[in-house]
């Protein structure tokens, strides 16, 4: 038996597969991105996503197996994202995974996508010391959580409306920057000044987030001042997001002792967020753990690593698509 898990992720618009060891070593990984396919919609178009997944999933699995030369019949397990996510996309992943599992005689576990993200910082090398405070910021999610060990998660706060990634995408669309909007907004913001006073929703209020009001404020502002320099609008929007994210992290770190602050999810790629988080951690005296950029967006490796936690905790949820799932559940 090889001590390897095959992780499969198809919850949204990336078909991603990886072979992962217990310590987070990634033996092989491959991702077929659909970003180009969804650019024109300013977001993910579910039917096209499902169609693309069914085209790409086995070629992606084969690529990972060919790259590594691993005999899949010796796998420890297959971990596949069971949710949360788009039902059609999830169904392709779980159905393919159970077919593979039966054919190779390997157990298949349904994995919580969010737990995958939380573990992404330990891929390739160990970067997280426990207890850790974790900020998950992506297109679909915005959470603050505390982990006392890889299997034990307490939700501290989450968004009451839009995710921060969603707000980025929508502002990108307002500014005509296309999809995915995060990197484009950050690049434009880097050339402008945060001169417009956009609101900081729930800034002084607990550990929950809200981004819907900020998004609407940008929309109203652009309607009223269509000639405002887009770079300044982007910079002002990013500044508002960052101030809120950093304030919440600071509050969470102050409330309970943490060895490190971990930031994961697609928005963790933001250079502005990385810089601001670095300053926060320096002043709070905790270590900042960031996954390499390739692991901060959706990927099969993080699902593979999370699967090891399931085995360690004796958890084996069936591979059935589950569109909504809390961060605390397995």
């Amino acid at each position, binding site marked *: 038996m090889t001590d390897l898990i095959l992780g499969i992720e198809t919850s949204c618009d990336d078909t991603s597969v990886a072979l992962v060891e217990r310590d987070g070593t990634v033996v092989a990984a491959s991702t077929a991105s659909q970003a*180009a*396919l969804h*650019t*024109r919609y300013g977001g993910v*178009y579910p*039917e*096209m996503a*499902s*169609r693309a997944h*069914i*085209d*790409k*999933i*086995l*070629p992606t*699995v*084969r690529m990972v197996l060919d790259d590594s030369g691993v005999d*899949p019949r010796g796998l420890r397990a297959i971990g596949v994202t069971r949710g949360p996510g788009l*039902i*059609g996309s999830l*169904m*392709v*992943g779980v*159905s*393919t*995974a*159970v*077919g*593979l*599992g*039966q*054919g*190779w*005689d390997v157990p298949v576990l349904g994995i919580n996508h969010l737990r995958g993200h939380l573990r992404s910082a330990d891929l390739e090398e160990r970067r997280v010391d426990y207890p850790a405070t974790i900020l998950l910021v992506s297109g679909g999610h915005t959470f603050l959580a505390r982990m006392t060990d890889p299997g034990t998660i307490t939700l501290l706060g989450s968004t009451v409306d839009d995710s921060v990634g969603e707000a980025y995408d929508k502002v990108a669309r307002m500014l005509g920057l296309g999809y995915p909007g995060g990197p484009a907004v950050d690049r434009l913001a880097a050339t402008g000044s945060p001169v417009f006073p956009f609101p900081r929703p729930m800034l002084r209020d607990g550990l929950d987030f809200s981004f819907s009001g900020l998004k609407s404020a940008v929309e109203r502002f652009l309607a009223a001042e269509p000639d405002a320099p887009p770079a300044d609008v982007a910079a002002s929007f990013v500044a508002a997001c960052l101030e809120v994210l950093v304030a919440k992290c600071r509050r969470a770190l102050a409330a309970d002792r943490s060895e490190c602050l971990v930031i994961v999810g697609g928005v963790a790629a933001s250079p502005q967020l990385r810089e601001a988080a670095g300053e926060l951690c320096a002043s709070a005296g905790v270590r900042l753990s960031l996954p390499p950029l390739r692991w901060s967006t959706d990927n099969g490796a993080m699902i593979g690593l999370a699967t090891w936690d399931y085995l360690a905790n004796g958890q084996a949820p*069936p591979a*059935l*698509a*589950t569109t909504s799932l809390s961060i605390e559940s397995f």
Partner: protein
Amino acid sequence: MLTLAVETSTSTFAVALGDGERVLATRELAGVAPRDRDLPGLVTGLLADAGYAFADLLRVAVDVGPGNLTAVRTGVAYANGLAFALGIGVVTADSLELMAARAGQPVLCLRNAGGGAAYGRLGPDYLHGPLAALAARVRTGAVAVAGDFRAEVARLLPGVLVEDTGIAGPDPATLLRLTADRTPLDPTRERAAAPLTETSPLFAGRGEAGEGGAAVHGGDVEKVVAVLRDGGVVLLPTDTVYGLAVHPEAGDGPLGRLFAMKRRPLSRNLPIMVADADQARGLGAQVPASAEKLLAAFSPGPLTLALGLTGPAPAWLAGRDEIAVRVPDDAFLLDVLRAAGPLLVTSANLSGHDTPETMGEVLAQLAGQPDLALDGGPRQTVPSTLVNCNLPAPVVERVGAVPAERIAEVLEGTQP
């Protein structure tokens, strides 16, 4: 040959194990919510019933629909995964041919396509369109029906004797029988076994307008436009050769797929088809006197003009200073262009090959499947003539369907 048949296109999931056409065991799962349908559990139970193991399987047969999209995809994804893991082939059948084979007599099979539309098969013909239009294809005094809408067909055809076969959907035993002689697919090839939709070539262009003849477009303009806007690649007949079309505002995704089908590197400088000269001007094209003359003489028709871009152009032409435009002489295509706006269209062939005459040959040659294929019957293999009007004096850069002498005659006396 021990074969597992997977049928998930209806609300009842059903599986069968067979050896050739002989059914060894069947199992089905009814009355379970879609998300809780445990297909792998069903198959495990089936094999246990018959006393076999997964490793004994030699092929997997799967119904590729049309049917409920997510349910069909569940079956297809599972079948592909299992076959890949076991290193065995996948054989497929569509749900309409399965119902017809089950009926064992000439029959009209229908499947609900949503929104009052249906997928159908009447005799050997595949259909897609409004239910009433499909029913109206029945030209005989009596017809047997299978699948969805069996009672509705009787109401829609008051003068026809409609016999209800009682067959509501496909079954895995027929799937075993029908696929026993088929050549298996490699499940790692892209789209080896993909669910069927109305954009699949099987249905495309075989809508209600089709009259059974070959040289009929049949596809409705709205559907073609919707597929293009959704980023689809459409194979369509033009007044010259078969062409591959994409919507210019759909981004690089469809362009990339179009060029992959042609095995050519991606280029954004594709010829643009327009409904009329005004659409060309709307793109910012400068139409000099020479071009006006050529348009008057050969447009619509097999003449492509290279024109300079001087006016305000749409975003997708950013960075371009010249475009090639053509107004095709084809009523259906002109309707599409009026509805969709200008389209990027190039000949439907592999790089370095001629464009074949028929849709079937084109589909066989291309390295990939368009999202929609419209059958226009046999088409020419000669492309349009290309004249560059963005030079001090017009130059014929490619001689095609319009002879160079005709161009010279028309241009005689034209000042650039």
